[in-house]
């Protein structure tokens, strides 16, 4: 996803002089080409995320379209009040791009996880939140973000996530994507964990269970229709996210269900259960350690179906 973002911002910069790439001492090598070809559209703020975000608001106020990019936790948390007051409250056309979100920087330890970022960005009025699941989605979402006027948070993971889309995929704000249809249960996910969900859904099929898999790249605004429909047609919903279940995708889906008086038989948010990411090691290991492996998804599906049928 990171490389897809860099490609997108490069292409955008070529098309529009107002597009700016902002970094906070994280631009070496990956931005070499950009810096070389569009030096005037590249600003390195050094290790000062708060300053970068407020300065981005100032730039936007003068007609620029700044994309401020650094590690997800640092841009959403270190600079939170700057995001609130200067970007959202004053509706500035600033794009925040966080990399290494969730527990993707598993080997860096917990200060480098971002498992609350969706929740805190979601409470900010005027903020749009995009969680790409694959490189193509990251590319499309970045291009889309440049087109709209207003704050966007793009939550990226790292590199080498497998692809789920065709080349012509276009991102649509407020739209979920059904990757696999099914009528027995619905699995909603955001981010690269969608691959674990698809693995789980395919294994469930061998057991005769047909799970609907929805990728939800747009967390705010969320696709209400796709959730309501899933509730009506499958009655059971599990959300899966690499984030605290408080305030993230699970909460968002639950709010939609309740507000629209959807009667579901069962609902379960999978994610960090009000805790910080546990364990230490590879990304796959740490997902398992925190209850987010394909096996654990299958187990939850079986429980939900088994106990209720």
């Amino acid at each position: 996803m990171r490389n897809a973002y860099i490609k997108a911002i490069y292409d955008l910069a070529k098309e529009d002089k107002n597009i700016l790439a902002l970094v906070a001492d994280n631009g070496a090598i990956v931005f070499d080409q950009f810096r070389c070809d569009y030096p005037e559209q590249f600003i390195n703020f050094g290790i000062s995320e708060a300053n970068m975000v407020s300065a981005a608001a100032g730039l936007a106020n003068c007609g620029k379209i700044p994309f401020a990019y650094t590690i997800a936790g640092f841009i959403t948390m270190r600079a939170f009040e700057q995001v609130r007051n200067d970007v959202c409250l004053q509706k500035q056309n600033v794009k925040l791009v966080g990399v290494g979100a969730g527990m993707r920087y598993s080997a860096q330890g917990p200060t480098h996880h971002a498992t609350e970022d969706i929740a805190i960005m979601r409470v900010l009025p005027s903020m749009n939140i995009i969680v790409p699941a694959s490189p193509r989605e990251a590319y499309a979402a970045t291009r889309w973000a440049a087109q709209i006027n207003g704050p966007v948070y793009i939550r990226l993971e790292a590199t080498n996530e497998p692809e789920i889309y065709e080349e012509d995929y276009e991102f649509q704000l407020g739209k979920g994507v059904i990757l696999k249809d099914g009528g027995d249960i619905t699995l909603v996910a955001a981010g690269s964990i969608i691959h674990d969900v698809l693995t789980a859904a395919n294994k469930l099929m061998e057991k005769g269970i047909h799970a609907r898999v929805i990728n939800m790249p747009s967390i705010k605004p969320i696709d209400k229709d796709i959730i309501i429909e899933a509730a009506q047609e499958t009655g059971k919903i599990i959300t899966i996210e690499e984030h605290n279940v408080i305030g993230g995708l699970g909460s968002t889906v639950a709010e939609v269900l309740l507000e629209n008086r959807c009667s579901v038989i069962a609902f379960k948010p999978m994610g960090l259960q009000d805790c910080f990411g546990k364990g230490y090691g590879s990304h796959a290991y740490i997902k398992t350690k925190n209850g987010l492996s394909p096996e654990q998804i299958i187990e939850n599906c079986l429980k939900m179906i088994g106990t209720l049928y």
Partner: protein
Amino acid sequence: MREISDSTVEIVTEKARVIRRDIIEMLGKAGSGHTGGSLSAADIMACLYFWELNLDPLKPDWDGRDRFVLSKGHAAPVLYASLAERGFFPREQLGTLRKLGSPLQGHPDRKKLAGVEASTGSLGQGISWAVGMGLAGKIDAAPYRVYALLGDGELEEGMVWEAVMAAAHYRLDNLVIIVDNNGLQIDGPIKKVMSPEPIADKFRAFGCETIAIDGHDPRAIMDALSCARQVSGKPTAIIAATVKGKGCSFMEDRPEWHGVTPNTDEVQRALAELG
């Protein structure tokens, strides 16, 4: 002032050499991590852990201990090597850096490893944590001292200066701020990326006793730490001029070695140079 004998200098120099070897070996095994900024701090850490700090590895939580906070948390390997050499945990454990389930994480985690005073990694926060510890020491009239090691790029974080201001305002003469002034950050020379210069003048203007030294000269480091003990009514900032990657010629002063680890071949070359 404390006497610094030739044999003391010799001991500390040898410890720094061993710490550098540990850093290379553990990063070689881990395959990921921060090499340059760990090596640049090795002499400072050797002086702290083998001369300055009042610690008891058998009682890592002892109330009266001196506190060391690695504000530049990415240099975890130099901290782990120092703690292991000082007897906080077995040296063999160094080989588990960044491995599944190891307490030696990519950035230090105080909940996982005895001797780690603060879970750092988000730059700028460690120094404020150290200011808090210094304030507590003052409130309790406790004799312990507090030390924070910062990167020079880290000085670009605004909160660093809020912390320095508070340290001077509250007259924290029990606090020593050490800057590993290796001149580099991830994206290149600090002077090119976002210059925090003139560093010593800034600390002085913020109310610190400021000492500029060669951060690879153990005698100079120990002298500065001794001077800091004589200072009263204000914190001391030691600006230690260092070379990133110090000790391995092919890494020295090269920004690309910030977050890259040596391969098998490079490990052998580095160890041969370190002796």
